[in-house]
């Protein structure tokens, strides 16, 4: 499995750094954008960071990568706000740094590329409410110690409370630790606690698979309980076709690093100016943030997706 892309003799080297740097979700999508941009620009893009959930290790990796003075760095900011300081330090050392998949607004990063996690929450809330016009009990699950998911859960909650007209109650917000088996266990317990539960929203990439497994094992039929989830492996989209899941939020992850590196490259090489200042003089001739948007996979568009992804 590759984790660095582009020609060996490339003049520019960019890094993408994350916790759980080889999360299947990343490999499946983010790496694709990474590979594409590396080939397009003829630059090197390298994955760095710990393979487990290890915030100090993550911070340490950012510091050490920036100490190599690479051409640019993209940091997955969603994991933890404490990355702010390291990003700041990279910028101070003159390493162009952007943040993707979760912003670090106070870090002085050049740009943020990714979705707005609040919008992810809102998208799931909207879909669930649409599927449950009469209201009912809903519950959510996520990795409670990941910053971006907290944002999503908060967005979900705020939207439901603001627009639900009191018809909906959020009965639980559980932690599945990013593990499908744990998600299944938690879902089963939620079903027991609230036999009349109407909807479930899962915010990490493994939640959906766990929810569907638990529902199937509980003898439910597709559609008995409305479910929204995040994208996972292509195979997971089948669950939308089968009716287990009503909405799958797709973050357009392939765009993340593609644009991150592109912006960094532009920053390094384009001669555009902002307020007359080029990037060398402190100008920022690139966008401050780039919302890659979300799309929602539902029954209506899932066939196209499955065909496109060649899932049997």
């Amino acid at each position: 499995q590759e984790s660095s892309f582009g020609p060996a003799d490339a003049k520019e080297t960019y890094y993408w750094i994350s916790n759980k740097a080889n999360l299947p979700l990343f490999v499946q999508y983010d790496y694709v954008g990474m590979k594409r941009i590396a080939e397009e620009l003829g630059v090197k893009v390298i994955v760095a960071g710990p393979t487990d959930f290890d915030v100090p290790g993550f911070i340490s990796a950012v510091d050490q990568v920036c100490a190599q003075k690479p051409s640019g760095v993209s940091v997955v900011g969603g994991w933890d706000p404490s990355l702010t300081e390291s990003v700041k330090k990279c910028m101070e050392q003159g390493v162009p740094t952007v943040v993707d998949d979760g912003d670090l607004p106070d870090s002085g990063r050049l740009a943020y590329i990714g979705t707005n996690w609040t919008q992810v929450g809102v998208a799931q809330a909207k879909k669930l409410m649409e599927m449950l016009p009469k209201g009912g009990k809903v519950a959510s699950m996520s990795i409670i110690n990941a910053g971006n998911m907290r944002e999503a859960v908060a967005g979900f909650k705020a939207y439901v409370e603001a627009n639900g007209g009191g018809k909906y109650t959020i009965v639980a917000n559980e932690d599945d630790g990013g593990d499908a088996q744990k998600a299944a266990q938690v879902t089963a317990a939620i079903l027991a606690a609230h036999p009349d539960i109407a909807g479930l929203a899962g915010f990490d990439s493994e939640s959906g698979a766990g929810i569907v497994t638990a529902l199937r094992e509980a003898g439910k039929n597709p559609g008995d309980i409305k479910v929204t989830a995040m994208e996972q492996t292509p195979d997971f989209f089948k669950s939308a076709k089968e009716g287990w899941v009503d909405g799958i939020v797709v973050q357009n992850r392939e765009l993340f690093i593609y644009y991150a590196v592109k912006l960094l490259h532009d920053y390094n090489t384009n001669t555009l100016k902002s307020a007359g200042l080029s990037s060398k003089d402190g100008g920022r001739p690139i966008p401050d943030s780039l919302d890659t948007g979300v799309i929602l996979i539902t029954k209506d568009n899932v066939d196209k997706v499955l065909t496109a992804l060649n899932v049997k």
Partner: protein
Amino acid sequence: MTMQITQPMAENAEHRRENLFVRIVRRLADSRELTLFVLVIALALAMSIVYPNNFPTASNMRAVLLNLAPVGILVCGMMLLMIGGTFDLSVGSTLAFSGVWAAVVAGWWGWPAEVAVLVGILVGALCGLVNGLIVTRIGINALIATLGTLTIYRSLTYVTAGTGVTPITDAFAEYGRAADPLLRIQSPFWAMLVLVLVGGWLVARTRFFRQFYFIGGNPRAAQLSGIRVDRLILIGFVIMGALAGLAGVLGAARLNSAVVNAGVGIELKVITATVLGGASLKGGEGTILGGILGVLFIALIENAMIINAIGVFWQGLVVGLVLLFAVSLDRFKTSSRA
């Protein structure tokens, strides 16, 4: 057996009858198993009374039992190792590695599901063998040895199948999904149950496995008693590996998906349950029954917390306190200093 010594024996026979009952009571009162058993029953009763419509339902019980299966399977092996005075931190990685290999064999290569299951278990046993060889041949202590292989096996899992294998095949998935017609609990639970029963009997009763108690009790004395300490420890690691392999295979089959991050951190859960069940790092004590009661207790607590709607921030507090409470109960029975 011949009774040569008549006089004291007669006296003893009297004593014995009286003692048998007293002894059973005393032993139970002193045992972690009883403490846990009482706690499990008490918790289940309390939950059933307070939440009659939520807790004691068939579907909830099914889910609890199914979900504790992987940890339960691993606890059997870990208990054996801890009785022998050692342990294995690499079980989570072994589990993932085996699951992925089984999935590769079934899903990518298209071999029959039976073969894939076997391959998975063999890969696990192999991982265990490597652990055992490092510990017994090179003589590296188990902590650092299995910490090392923990990262190695995980890394090999990544290298084998970057993002995992999804879906595997329906035939393979059937191994983790098949349920008995009566109670409709899926195969991982039954596999665990069989292992616990067979393993419990083996460890408690057979002379072969009894040797692990001797090894844990005093390895040098065991060695000098003619027990092949190194070989047995090696076998213990292989069994542990094979069980992790089995858990990995069943987990992958149940989800029809072998993920590379399967079992991350499961070693702590397994060791927690094992120690809760009566094992100690020093070795020489513990039973499979205790271990499985430990698993059950923790699973019920987790289930109860969600049914009770205890906020996710508070759950750690509850789990921690309950754990400390459970292990401290039997401390109060025996006075600390002679």
